[in-house]
């Protein structure tokens, strides 16, 4: 027997905290004010009006942004119309060169764009750095490759560009949603007038300057900034041949009404209330990560967020316990800190909406759980939230919250899982966790969703189409399918 053993002291755990690891912002130059990007240059708005954009993590203003009125939108559409004549006749090989150049320049300036996206939008730097910006470059690379192969993509048909595309994008993935729309539009020979969301205009404007540096002909890409009325003017403008919108279902419906009877082509990528189905044979610890990623990625500001967890009743308690434990380790706070998992809510209005729906959930009698994390004093933040004991009839099970809030329900049989999963007006995405391959296929056949992820969640690739069913919209972005909405003569 070793005589020294009893003397060995108990060793207390070391405090293993992460020191602040803030991404430097000195690479990013933000002007005091930004004009509209029309015909290859920044222009003062005819409206003479500006609004300010703020950093949602600090509530401090970042810049003043021009607010485009009808006259401004008209100027932009006319510039795009004028540029359309030569751009549509530019050989695909030449258009590809611009797109490849843009993609490379985004890669070269990835850090700058990532920081700007995080400053203006509140998303964690690790997401803008590892997800948003690399994918933006990937979508441009991908569609650059299609530009000179359109006749091979649609054999026997004569694909022609539509003309001018009016594109209205949301604030949750500003540059990424822009790339999903701009890259296929330019590759197919259309010119673009883009309206970014009013809370996140900066990366679109920085991108506009990049297109000039890339030598993209003037007028091919234009940006009109502003809020809803600016978007409405763009959508309604008679010079627009194609409308592409990503955003809320309510606005999507309004757009569809406004262009009814016109020859405009339309694609809508709208809201969702995605079911995330976990069976009892699932790889449990990985499913926990998948569920966390599904709802807390980008603070839940994701149209395809897995906001309804359907867990098999036999493992529900165990699973929810594990989920709660995992929530305690989520790091909520300064989006610029490289170790932050959940950043700032994009705007005060969105924070109010989340708060309102969470209050409704409590009133409706669902059990709320939030981890003991501390939120910063300033800025718009919301704790990651779970609701247990949620019924199908609860508003938090039906309405899109667009925040870090997960509604948990249970099911007993696969048929019940399908019934509950499909019991929604939406149909954008769904997730399934099970080790049975046959069950994955059985579920995927029956889930009414544009995307079904099996044993993973939130996976994107430029080659894979994305889009919704029912009130989640129509038309596809990504892949060969993503070319269709910008071409005539292909059906």
């Amino acid at each position: 027997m070793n005589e020294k053993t009893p003397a060995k002291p108990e060793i207390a755990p070391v405090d293993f905290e992460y020191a602040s690891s803030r991404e430097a912002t000195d690479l990013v130059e933000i002007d005091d004010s930004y004009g509209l990007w029309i015909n290859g240059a920044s222009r003062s708005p005819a409206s003479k009006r500006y609004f300010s954009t703020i950093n949602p993590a600090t509530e401090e203003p970042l810049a003043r942004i021009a607010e485009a009125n009808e006259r401004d939108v008209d100027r932009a559409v006319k510039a795009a119309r004028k540029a359309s004549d030569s751009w549509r006749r530019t050989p695909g090989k030449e258009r590809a060169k611009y797109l490849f150049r843009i993609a490379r320049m985004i890669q070269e300036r990835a850090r700058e764009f990532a920081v700007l996206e995080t400053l203006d939008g509140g998303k964690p730097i690790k997401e803008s750095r590892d997800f948003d910006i690399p994918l933006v470059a990937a979508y441009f690379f991908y569609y650059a490759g299609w530009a000179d192969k359109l006749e091979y993509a649609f054999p026997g048909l004569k694909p022609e560009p539509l003309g001018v595309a009016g594109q209205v994008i949301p604030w949750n993935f500003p540059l990424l949603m822009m790339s999903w729309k701009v890259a296929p539009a330019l590759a197919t020979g259309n010119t673009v007038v883009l309206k970014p969301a009013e809370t996140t205009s900066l990366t679109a404007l920085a991108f506009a300057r990049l297109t000039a540096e890339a030598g993209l002909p003037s007028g091919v890409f234009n940006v009109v900034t502003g809020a809803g009325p600016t978007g409405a003017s763009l959508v309604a403008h008679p010079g627009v041949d194609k409308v592409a919108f990503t955003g809320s279902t309510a606005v999507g419906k309004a757009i569809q009404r406004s262009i009814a009877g016109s020859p405009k082509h339309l694609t809508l990528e709208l809201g969702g209330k995605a079911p995330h189905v976990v069976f009892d044979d699932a790889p449990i610890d990985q499913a926990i990560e998948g569920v966390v990623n599904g709802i807390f990625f980008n603070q839940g500001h994701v149209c395809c967020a897995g906001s309804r967890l359907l867990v098999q009743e036999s493992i529900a308690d165990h699973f929810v316990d594990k989920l709660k434990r995992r929530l305690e380790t989520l790091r909520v706070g300064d989006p610029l800190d490289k170790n932050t998992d959940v950043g700032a809510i994009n705007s005060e209005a969105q924070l109010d909406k989340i708060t309102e729906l969470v209050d409704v959930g409590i009133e409706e009698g669902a059990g709320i759980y939030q981890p003991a994390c501390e939120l910063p004093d300033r800025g718009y933040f919301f704790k990651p939230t779970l609701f247990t004991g949620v019924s199908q009839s609860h508003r938090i099970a039906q309405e899109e919250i667009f925040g870090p809030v997960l509604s948990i329900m249970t099911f007993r049989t696969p048929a019940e899982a399908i019934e509950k999963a499909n019991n929604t007006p939406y149909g954008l995405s769904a997730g399934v966790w099970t080790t049975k391959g046959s069950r994955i296929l059985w579920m995927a056949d029956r889930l009414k969703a544009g995307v079904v992820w099996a044993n993973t969640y939130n996976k994107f690739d430029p080659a894979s189409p994305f889009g919704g069913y029912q009130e989640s919209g129509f038309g596809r972005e990504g892949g060969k399918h993503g070319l269709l909405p910008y071409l005539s003569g292909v059906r």
Partner: protein
Amino acid sequence: MTVARGSDSISGVSTPATISDTSPILGQSVSRRSLETYLRATPSVDEVAANERAAALATRSIKRESKMHALELTIRMMDLTTLEGMDTPGKVTQLASKAIRPDPTDPTIPSVAALCVYPNMVPTASEALHGTDIHLAAVASYFPSGQAPLAVRVADTQWAQQAGADEIDMVIDRGAFLSGDFVKVYDDIVAVKEACGPAHLKVILETGELATYDNVRKASMLAMAAGADFIKTSTGKVSPASTRPVTLVMLEAIRDFEAMTGFQIGMKSAGGIRTAKDAIRYLVLVSETMGKDWMTPRMFRFGASSLLNDVLMQIRWLRSGVYQNPDYFTKD
């Protein structure tokens, strides 16, 4: 309350007086059927998602004071190891001084957790470590193959323990495990655990030979039920040795075993961990998977040899702002 099993020497707190109080979980002799029923409850592991989670945690940015804490903790969690056929008493004595005082020019650097040697070297190491807090680990029971009759493996273990080892690192019979003879694996561990006496048992799964994460998870559950105080990835003699995803899978098994039985089993990642940067990534993985209570050598160990000098180099760099020539660090 959860306690570390068996070995007062490791926990230093009031742990059960005899091993039989606590281990093995399923009893000294277990039927094939009951063992299979127990193992069938093990959830499956999705390999892609487990790799993804480990990779995501590797992007944590550990700076300044937290980096210094992590480096010091890495040393305190280290089982400084020499397991070579050409080991000599002189070499082991040298390594023991390195274990006690890793950097002779800097007395603030802590000692390592344990020195890990072959049984033959235990008497030498025991003498060299006498009077220190450093544990003495012996790789026993016919390390690294384990391919010997059980009586030989038990005798090897007993000998090492009686010669002064207070920690025993054994390796499971992978052949038996892969052929589905879980009872054989279980019985081996129970027998070796008994031969350990008061010494604390680390059970090596040799994950590089188990091939799948499902096997790793199942073998973890098996080893813990049979009485392991720690479960350990690798011998270091098989490639791949420890990886972060494998460590994650084993930690998740430990977490589930604790929830199920109340017993807190430790974890040792060994083999292939050579840089301070990699070690810090392991610490992040442990901390975020198991919680703050785990940041102690009582719960987590690194089995390593060349890692120590890299950690010392990084500490010197953090303190002085310049990288030193590797020749300034002793090679033992």
